[in-house]
């Protein structure tokens, strides 16, 4: 059984022979191959741009989630301060879920970072090889007979074909990775939109309303005491006409 290296080489050469078989004469082979190289160079550049876009989206989500963590923590404190441990607990549970999501995002961003580095390295190599091929192509066209040219074209094209297969694989894997990340980013967006990871203030769920009510209650109380202080009424004294329940009488007597 042949080793993996020669098998890989056979696979790559088979891909290349399709390209070389297409052209009718040496000059056409050279020009066509060169066009394909330039096209692939564009593909690598697009691949890099796609990875960068996917990375930016995840980084944006990271920022949003980090803000959520801060808000949830603040809200937990407020709830606890108001004696609502149940609400504080819910806020902290959400905070913990958001933090887990953040860890996952960090890893994904690193993964994309690696893909980007590989693509950029591949782009640089391809560029150098294309430049060398372009020079060689003109030499072959100018100096060799058709038969000799065929041999030299074969060599040069094999060398660059390998690079194209290599870069092609890098593009393919980066695309797969980017697609995975986009799916993940969409899932995170959905979680945020559904309120599962969002801070309470921007969602309309039960917890949100309770916390909002709590906050507004505290504010109303504050304002009331401030007004009373301004009017000089001191402690609260219920209006006489509705003074009927025993509770209220007890309240005023203490």
């Amino acid at each position, binding site marked *: 059984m042949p080793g993996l290296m020669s098998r890989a080489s056979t696979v*790559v050469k088979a891909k290349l022979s399709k390209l070389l078989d297409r052209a009718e004469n040496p000059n056409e082979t050279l020009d066509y191959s060169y066009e394909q190289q330039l096209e692939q160079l564009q593909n690598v550049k697009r691949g890099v741009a796609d990875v960068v876009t996917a990375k930016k989206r995840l980084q944006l989500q990271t920022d949003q989630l980090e803000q959520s963590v801060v808000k949830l923590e603040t809200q937990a404190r407020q709830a606890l301060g108001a004696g609502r441990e149940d609400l504080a607990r819910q806020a902290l549970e959400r905070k913990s879920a958001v933090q887990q999501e953040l860890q996952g995002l960090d890893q994904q961003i690193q993964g994309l970072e690696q893909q980007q580095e590989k693509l950029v*390295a591949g782009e640089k190599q391809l560029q150098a*090889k294309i430049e060398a091929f372009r020079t060689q192509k003109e030499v072959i066209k100018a100096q060799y007979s058709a038969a000799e040219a065929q041999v030299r074209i074969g060599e040069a094209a094999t*060398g660059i074909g390998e690079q194209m297969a290599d870069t092609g694989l890098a593009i393919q894997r980066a695309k797969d990775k980017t697609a995975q990340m986009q799916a993940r980013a969409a899932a995170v967006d959905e979680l945020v939109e559904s309120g599962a990871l969002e801070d309470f203030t921007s969602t309309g769920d039960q917890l949100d309303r309770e916390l909002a009510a709590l906050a507004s209650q505290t504010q109303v109380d504050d304002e009331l005491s401030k007004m009373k202080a301004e009017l000089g009424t001191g402690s609260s004294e219920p209006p006489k006409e509705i003074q009927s329940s025993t509770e209220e009488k007890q309240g005023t007597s203490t």
Partner: protein
Amino acid sequence: MIVRIMGDGQYRVDDAAAAEISELDDQAAAALEAGDEQAVRDLLRRLAESVRSRGTRLDDSDLSPSDGIVPPEDLTLEEAREFFSGEGLIPDLPA
């Protein structure tokens, strides 16, 4: 001989290094045959390291074809099978 490490570049290795590399290569092939993903990865990584440390890197503008190609070391078993079947994983060159 000239060896390409995919995702890295090409290296020229002498005969002594080539023998060592070839042995690792055979082991990697056996691991793939046995469906041992971890062993395939380990061996591909050692293969690539061996080529890097014992070989001399070719200039990026060198157009020499390689005698052997080391696939990416982080291939999954599924990707490796796809790779060696010549289907899909390496996109067809436009023809």
